[in-house]
């Protein structure tokens, strides 16, 4: 168990370092930063001042090491546009994005797990086919479009939920549904196929031969084994949701990290963009690690591997 954890942790750290390096390189490769910060009307003198002020005249390796040391300490420098510490900006926006992602994931799981299990139990029946049809439609629907439809129906016509903005729980419902919709198809398919495999296994026959209740057979013995791939994909989907929040937060005007990124891209505020990309990537790595650990709890064979 300890060896498994240490190995996963080492891999996660390596990936994190790669992400740090890439996010540094991407901003430097996209052109001369001093010129883009200075803007189209700046003179050569302005550009030189900016270059010195931001330390962009130093060798690239020195810039990289300096940046790395500070990034590891959580210091991403100052925002050009918001005139504030980048770390502080992100810290203030992150809870909104995280809440949104978790709401989305919760809705997705609540919908997809039972439907996937039902589809597996009633394999090849009309129930199964209609559930899979819904999954197909969900997969084909663009999320911003679904967001607009929900705004019109739930927000304008029925007046049940606020259309946009940041606030109490009711502001998270509609964007949560939209985020969930993109995750539901894959989670449902995986639950279904995992359950079909589990239900045809010998240990399910044993569970039935032991006279266990239907619930115990399906959930305790069946789903426990089907859940292992589902946990991995759920972590990936939550990562997508956090990344995809750039679109959803813009559509619903929620002032989370995604909205911050969207604003910063428009303003050429590269320290913020760089830090948002970095934070989302690190979150993604953390989620994958969490999923690995959850799987080790679910599958005893992984622990001794």
């Amino acid at each position: 168990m300890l060896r498994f954890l240490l190995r996963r942790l080492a891999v996660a750290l390596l990936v994190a370092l790669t992400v740090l390096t890439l996010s540094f390189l991407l901003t430097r490769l996209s052109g001369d930063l001093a010129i883009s910060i200075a803007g189209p009307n700046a003179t050569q003198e302005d550009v030189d001042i900016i270059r010195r002020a931001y330390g962009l005249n130093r060798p690239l390796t020195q810039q990289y090491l300096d940046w790395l040391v500070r990034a590891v300490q959580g210091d991403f420098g100052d925002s050009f546009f918001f005139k504030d510490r980048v770390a502080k900006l992100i810290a203030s926006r992150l809870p909104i994005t995280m809440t949104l992602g978790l709401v989305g994931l919760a809705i997705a799981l609540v919908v997809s797990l039972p439907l996937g299990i039902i589809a597996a139990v009633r394999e090849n029946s009309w129930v199964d086919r209609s559930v899979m049809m819904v999954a197909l439609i969900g997969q084909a629907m663009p999320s911003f479009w679904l967001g607009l439809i929900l705004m019109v129906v739930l927000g304008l016509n029925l007046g049940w939920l606020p259309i946009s903005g940041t606030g109490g729980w009711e502001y998270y419902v509609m964007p949560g549904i939209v985020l969930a919709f993109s995750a539901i198809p894959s989670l449902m398919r995986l639950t279904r196929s995992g359950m079909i495999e589990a239900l045809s296994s010998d240990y399910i026959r044993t569970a039935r031969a032991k006279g266990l209740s239907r619930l115990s057979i399906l959930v305790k013995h069946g789903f426990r084994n089907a859940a292992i791939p589902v946990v991995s994909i759920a972590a990936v989907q939550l990562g997508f949701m956090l990344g995809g929040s750039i679109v959803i937060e813009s559509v619903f005007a929620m002032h989370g990290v995604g909205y911050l990124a969207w604003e910063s891209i428009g303003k050429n505020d590269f320290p913020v963009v760089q830090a948002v990309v970095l934070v989302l990537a690190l979150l993604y790595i953390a989620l994958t690690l969490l999923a690995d650990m959850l799987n080790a709890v679910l599958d005893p064979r992984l622990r001794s591997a």
Partner: protein
Amino acid sequence: MSALLEVQGLRVTFGGTAAVRGASLTVNKGETHCLVGESGCGKSVTSLAIMALLAKGGRREADVLSFAGQDIRGLNERQMSRLRGDRMAMIFQEPMTSLNPAYTVGSQMTEVLRRHRGASRVQAVDRAAELLGRVGITAPGLRLGQFPHQLSGGLRQRVMIAMALMCDPELLIADEPTTALDVTVQAQILRLLAGIQKDLGLGILLITHDLGVVARIADRVSVMYAGEVVESAPTAALFADPQHPYTRGLLACVPVPGKVKRGDPLGSIPGVVPRIPPGFRGCAFRDRCAYAHAECAGTIPRRGAGAGHEVLCTLPPGYASRVAA
């Protein structure tokens, strides 16, 4: 002796294919009944049909299917689940995959007693440890906390047997419990089953294709061919005086030290178990039978051949010696 399990005219179909075509057998209380036959003859399906554990798409019908005097044909899944694991238990051919990889041995054993007897955790753990000891597992306390992948095949099958005994069942169905194990372990498991049967006095229906096993532990043998029980007899009678040409063929396939000379060809039955088309009449063995004649295509009578000895064949007793003469 009274019948614990009575099966008459059991028919199982998967889609259009008949897997069992009117099989009949009786397991008495405290008796070990062996069901033998080649691969694909319907032994396993018969046992699963009795337990109502057929895979999806399997349909079961029977003229009589009673357990301890109760007609179990009409029981629904919920009612059957009350019997299974409690009064009738089953162990399977595949010890490697029959235990759930996600739960400890202890968790899987105790849930049986907790489900059927409402036992407390402590009671169930005590019972599980006691039974692990009973099936010859040393350090039961250690094993209870282990996961299936930490145990060998032989240990897993012992765990399966112990798990089946949790509620002191009246009937134990064992579907080729030793096939997947190596030879030394096979002998241990069989000795164990025989010992348990003697001590606990439960009825065992043992499915096997190994006649050596049958000779050692069966009280009674039923021979199955192409979905039918073609011959049923007390073990001694079957080995001494096999009636059905198929039974004779099976017995000729087993080398007996002292009887079969070194270098003599071992017996075999030409051909394979045929696929039986729907609406098939007559004896399914007739294409492989050296004694087949016109009547074999008609309805086959069930005739007696001594005490408790029945055979499904048109040939008269003693046909073999007469043909040979």
